[in-house]
Each structure stands twice: as structure tokens, then as C-alpha cells.
């Protein structure tokens, strides 16, 4: 049909080959497949590239645009650096599932229609669940089941919405819409579940920290950011997203402040950062959408970097709780420095990628005259520095001396971290070349002296607040309840009470039936000669001639026919 090779297919073939191959050959596939994918991504021209018949529709598996290429680029790059980070430590099935998961994300990036989008969407749900399960612990298995249920539910809601849109508009095209009727609301809700929007945010911080040190690096990148891409494509300028985003931003900060587990702190801060993007998509101007796309790109890099540094700590020490960690800077200088670079980037510190991308979102809010939104986002920027920028490196690498003296990262993990740390700084110092790849042409200037000074004040005084308020932030051996408490505990308890009531009702009915049956049995035994005995006593227990039986049947039939005619 076409000589064009879909980029997602290359990564998928790589994922399939990881299983049967061994040794250096497998390593070669792990490292080369994402690079080939990256090359293929940049061969995709604008517009629909391939079409294929599917049922009664013509689907468009590959459609190019600057926005789509930008997301596919970062997904493929993430697969490469994640593969480099993981290939010597991760189990083969985790690597294979991680690559298939990444292939799903690349597939969503180029999906030209809703059917293709849905297929790749479900592929991601499936393989990301396997990545969670690869954590290998009973907790990982249980969290994986909860994760799968949530994403299958989200998939069904999305499917209901897509069916509705297709039936009512007659088109499977991906085009901007607003949440105005049942169909579009279902599509929006289905996507928002994957973005970890409220009220279903809890799955993210529940599942990601249970995965392996390498698995969480893959998980941090794809699901929420494909949701961001889908929102940019389908719901740009949908006003409800502004407040959904603000909620996510604040939710992430508060829960991360309460959290003790280092990787769970990072998981909550994913929700926080995706909140900035969702809010920008709600604003919906070209500047805002550029900001959302740019921030998603930068976010995957620094969040991957943060999870990598936390992953090295878990890999070397087997611990991830702040109460168990501390003082690791002594023996893990590289991991500490990389963790700090990631932490500064997520806090949008000047000279890091977070500053050059997130400030576009604030600027978009100002341009639209959304003063309250701007002020909340600015307060949240201070809060990011508080919960992720300082809290994460402080409690993991400094704080007290935990007595742990682990070795620094293995060479491949170190190389992956250095690549991402360099990119964080590169995009932070030279943002202009990066801006060329954004969906809309822009002459945005990130570095104005007044703005840099404002952010320096904002962030450094947040840092002061952190150290002055440290006594209020003593880590405790606790978790924080989220809305998933409703179904994990309340519904569960209500369900078991209901089951118990039903069981006792059922028991009563059963006893009743048993007494009736035994009395019926007595009657049957006495008068009809049924059951238990070989010797027949009653009328119906006798052995009859076939002729007599036929006669009786004939008589009964005649009676039936007669009554039928009479009535």
C-alpha cells in the first residue's frame, strides 16, 4: 500500500524482538530501535500520510504536523534514554512492555482519526500495566490491578464518547471540539482520566511508585503526556480545563508536601506539572498551546531525570522513604547533582528548561487578562520549588546522615542521567532553537531581566520558607488518603456488609427450601413411589408398555387440540 514505515511500528517490532533475543543482540535492539524510530518520526511530512480501510471507515494511522512530531520526538527520545538507563538492570519483559508502551505513545501522536487513537490508547493501558506488575512485589501486583481497572474504565468511557461523536457527526476525524454534549463530555472525561485529573488522580501516585526503579522512569513519561497531546488536538480552549488544571496543580503540591516516599513525591508532582499544561490548554491561545506543548516536552526530560535519580537510590539502597534516606550526597555525587538539576528544572529556575517553557503558560494567562489564574499559577510555581525543587533532593540526599554509603549509579544509568541533565540545561540556556519546533511560530523571549529577577525572588524566598518551616514538615511514616479511599475502603466495606446481609437472607431461604423439599420428598415417597428406592410402589413408578405410553400421548394431544379449537 505504501513504502512508508509508521514510526510506532519500528518501536513495536523492537519490543517484540527484545523477548527472543539474548545478550549483546538484545542490548543492540534496545538501543537502536528508539533511534530508528526517532529518524522515522522526522520523515513524517505534514498531513495524512497513510490510510487503510477498517470496517466501513477509512482510518488514517499516520498523520503528521509539527505538534505531533514534537510529541513523537520526545516519546522516542524518552524510549532511548529510558532504554539506556534500564537495559542492564531491568527484566526483559519489563523492557519489552516499556517499549510497546512507548510505541503506543508514538502511535497516539500520529493517529489521524479517533479509531486509531483509541487502539493505541488501549495498547498503552495494557503494556503500562505490565510495567507496573514488573515491580514484582505483592504490592506492585495489587497496584497494577487497580491501575488496570482505572484505565480500562477510562478506555470504555472514551470509547462511548468516540462512538457517540462518530454516530452523530459521521466523521472519525480528530478535530477540535468543546464539551457541549454527552458524547464530547465522555471523550473529555476518558482523556482526563489518563491525565490524572480530579476526581480520579489517585491511580498515578498509587501505581507508579510500586514499579521497579527502571519501570517508574518509563511510566512517568507517556500516559499523562499523550493525554495532554489528545487534549491539545481535541479540546483547545475548553474553559473547564483552566480550573481542572488549577486544581491539579494545587492537589499535587499539597499531597507531595504530606508524602514520605520519595518516588511518591515525584508522582504527585507529575499531577502538579500536568495541571500547568491542562490549564494552558484551557486558555487555548497560540501562546498557551505552545506553552503546553513545550512544557510537556521539557517535563518528560526533567521528570524522567528525577525518577532516574530516585531510581538509582532505590536500586542501590532498596529504600525510598525519606525517613530511611538522607546524607547520600557523600557517596553518590553524580546522582545528587543530576537530581538537583532535575529539581531546579521542575521548579522553573532560570537557566533550566522549566523556566523557558512554563513561563510561556504564565505569559498566556497574562495576555488573556486572567489575573487570578496568573496569580495562582505563580503561587504554584513557588509551591513546586517547595515540594519538589527542594523537598525531594533535601530529604533524599542531604537532611540527616542515614548512615547509608551506597555506590553511585552504574555507568549506563549515569549516562542516561547525564544526557537528560544536559538537555535540561541546554533548553534552559538556548531556548530559541527549541522554539522552532513548537506548533505555532513564536518570537517569545524567555529571558527579560525583570522577569528573571521576579522569579529569582519568588523561588529563593520559597526556599527560605522551606528551611524556616522545616520543623513543620517532619517526615512521618504515613500515607495520605485520597478519593480512591471511597472504593478501596468505603465501597468495599459497604459491599462486604451487603454481601453478609445477602448471605444471611440466602441462608434463610435455603433452610426454608430444604424443609419444603424434604416434606415434598416424604409426600412423593409415600404416594408416588419416587426416589431412593428401586422397588416401585406408586402409580407413576410402574413400568409401562410403549403402546400404552403412545396411547396416553395421543389422548393428551387430542385434548390439547380440542381445547385450542374451542377457545
Amino acid at each position: 500500500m505504501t513504502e512508508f514505515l509508521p514510526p510506532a511500528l519500528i518501536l513495536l517490532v523492537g519490543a517484540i524482538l527484545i523477548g527472543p533475543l539474548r545478550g549483546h543482540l538484545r542490548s543492540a535492539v534496545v538501543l537502536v530501535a528508539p533511534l530508528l524510530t526517532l529518524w522515522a518520526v522526522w520523515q513524517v511530512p505534514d498531513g495524512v500520510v497513510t490510510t487503510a480501510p477498517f470496517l466501513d471507515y477509512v482510518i488514517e494511522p499516520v498523520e503528521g504536523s509539527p505538534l505531533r512530531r514534537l510529541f513523537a520526538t520526545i516519546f522516542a527520545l524518552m524510549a532511548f534514554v529510558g532504554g539506556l538507563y534500564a537495559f542492564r538492570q531491568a527484566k526483559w519483559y519489563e523492557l519489552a512492555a516499556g517499549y510497546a508502551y512507548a510505541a503506543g505513545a508514538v502511535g497516539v501522536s500520529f493517529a489521524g482519526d479517533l479509531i486509531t487513537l483509541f487502539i493505541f490508547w488501549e495498547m498503552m493501558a495494557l503494556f503500562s500495566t505490565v510495567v507496573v506488575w514488573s515491580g514484582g512485589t505483592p504490592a506492585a501486583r495489587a497496584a497494577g490491578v487497580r491501575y488496570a481497572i482505572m484505565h480500562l474504565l477510562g478506555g470504555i468511557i472514551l470509547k462511548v464518547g468516540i462512538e457517540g461523536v462518530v454516530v452523530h457527526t459521521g466523521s472519525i476525524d480528530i478535530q477540535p471540539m468543546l464539551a457541549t454534549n454527552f458524547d464530547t463530555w465522555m471523550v473529555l472525561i476518558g482523556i482526563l482520566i489518563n491525565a490524572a485529573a480530579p476526581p480520579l488522580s489517585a491511580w498515578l501516585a498509587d501505581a507508579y511508585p510500586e514499579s521497579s526503579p527502571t519501570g517508574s522512569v518509563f511510566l512517568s513519561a507517556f500516559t499523562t503526556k499523550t493525554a495532554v497531546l489528545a487534549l491539545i488536538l481535541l479540546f483547545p480552549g475548553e474553559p473547564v480545563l483552566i480550573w481542572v488544571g488549577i486544581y491539579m496543580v494545587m492537589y499535587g503540591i499539597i499531597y507531595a508536601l504530606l508524602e514520605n516516599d520519595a518516588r511518591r513525591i515525584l508522582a504527585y508532582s507529575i499531577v502538579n506539572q500536568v495541571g500547568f499544561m491542562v490549564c494552558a490548554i484551557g486558555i487555548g491561545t497560540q501562546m498557551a498551546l505552545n506553552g503546553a506543548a513545550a512544557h510537556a516536552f521539557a517535563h518528560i526530560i526533567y521528570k524522567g531525570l528525577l525518577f532516574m535519580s530516585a531510581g538509582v537510590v532505590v536500586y542501590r539502597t532498596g529504600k525510598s522513604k525519606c525517613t530511611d534516606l538522607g546524607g547520600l550526597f557523600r557517596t553518590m555525587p553524580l546522582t545528587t547533582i543530576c537530581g538537583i538539576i532535575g529539581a531546579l528544572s521542575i521548579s522553573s529556575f532560570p537557566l533550566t528548561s522549566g523556566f523557558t517553557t512554563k513561563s510561556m503558560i504564565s505569559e498566556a494567562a497574562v495576555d488573556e487578562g486572567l489575573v487570578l489564574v496568573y496569580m495562582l499559577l505563580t503561587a504554584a510555581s513557588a509551591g513546586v520549588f517547595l515540594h519538589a525543587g527542594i523537598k525531594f533532593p533535601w530529604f533524599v540526599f542531604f537532611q540527616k546522615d542515614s548512615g547509608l554509603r551506597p555506590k553511585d549509579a552504574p555507568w549506563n544509568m549515569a549516562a542516561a542521567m547525564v544526557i537528560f541533565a544536559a538537555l535540561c540545561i541546554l533548553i534552559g540556556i538556548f531556548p530559541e532553537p527549541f522554539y522552532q519546533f513548537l506548533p505555532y511560530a513564536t518570537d517569545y523571549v524567555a529571558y527579560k531581566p525583570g522577569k528573571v529577577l521576579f522569579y529569582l525572588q519568588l523561588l529563593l524566598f520559597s526556599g527560605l520558607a522551606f528551611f524556616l518551616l522545616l520543623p513543620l514538615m517532619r517526615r512521618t511514616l504515613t500515607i495520605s488518603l485520597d478519593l480512591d479511599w471511597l472504593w478501596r475502603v468505603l465501597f468495599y466495606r459497604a459491599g462486604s456488609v451487603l454481601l453478609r446481609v445477602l448471605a444471611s437472607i440466602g441462608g434463610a431461604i435455603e433452610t426454608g427450601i430444604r424443609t419444603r423439599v424434604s416434606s415434598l420428598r416424604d409426600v412423593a415417597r409415600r404416594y408416588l413411589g419416587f426416589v431412593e428406592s428401586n422397588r416401585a410402589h406408586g402409580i407413576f413408578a410402574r413400568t409401562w408398555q410403549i403402546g400404552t405410553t403412545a396411547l396416553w400421548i395421543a389422548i393428551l394431544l387430542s385434548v390439547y387440540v380440542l381445547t385450542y379449537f374451542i377457545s
Partner: protein
Amino acid sequence: MNDSQKDDAWLARPASIRLLWRVFWAVLALTVAAQLVIKVKGYFGIDDWLAFGAVYGFLACVAMVLVAKVLGYLLKRDENYYAAEDERD
């Protein structure tokens, strides 16, 4: 912070921590003082005032920590809460 005197790490010595605090205070003062020279563009009247970013950032963080503290009383549970919940039945 670590107070053990025999710690080999420079960063963990009380003297270095005191020095770092002094540098930190100096940098903080500098960012505010710099506003006398570099104009911060305001968007709604008061955000170009001297040290607005500093005060706003500081107060925002204090507010968030306090909100988290209060919510913590409501939301925090023992880390084995769900495991214990599963064993109830």
C-alpha cells in the same frame, strides 16, 4: 541538619552550614536590592512593588505548608493502612 562533629563531609559541618546560611541571606537581600536597578514589569498594579515576588513567594509557601499541615490531620493514616484494611475480612 547533621551536627556530628566527626563527619568528614564539608557540607555537614556546622561551620559550613553557618557559612551557607550567611551566603543565602546575602543572595536573598541582593535579589531584593537588584529591583532598585532592574525594573520588574507588573501586570496588575501591585506586582511591580519592591520585593513583591519575595513576599508573595514566601507567603504562598507558608500558606501551602499550613494547609497541608491541617489537611494532614484529616488525611494522614499509618502507612500500612490499606494492608490492614485488606486483612479485616
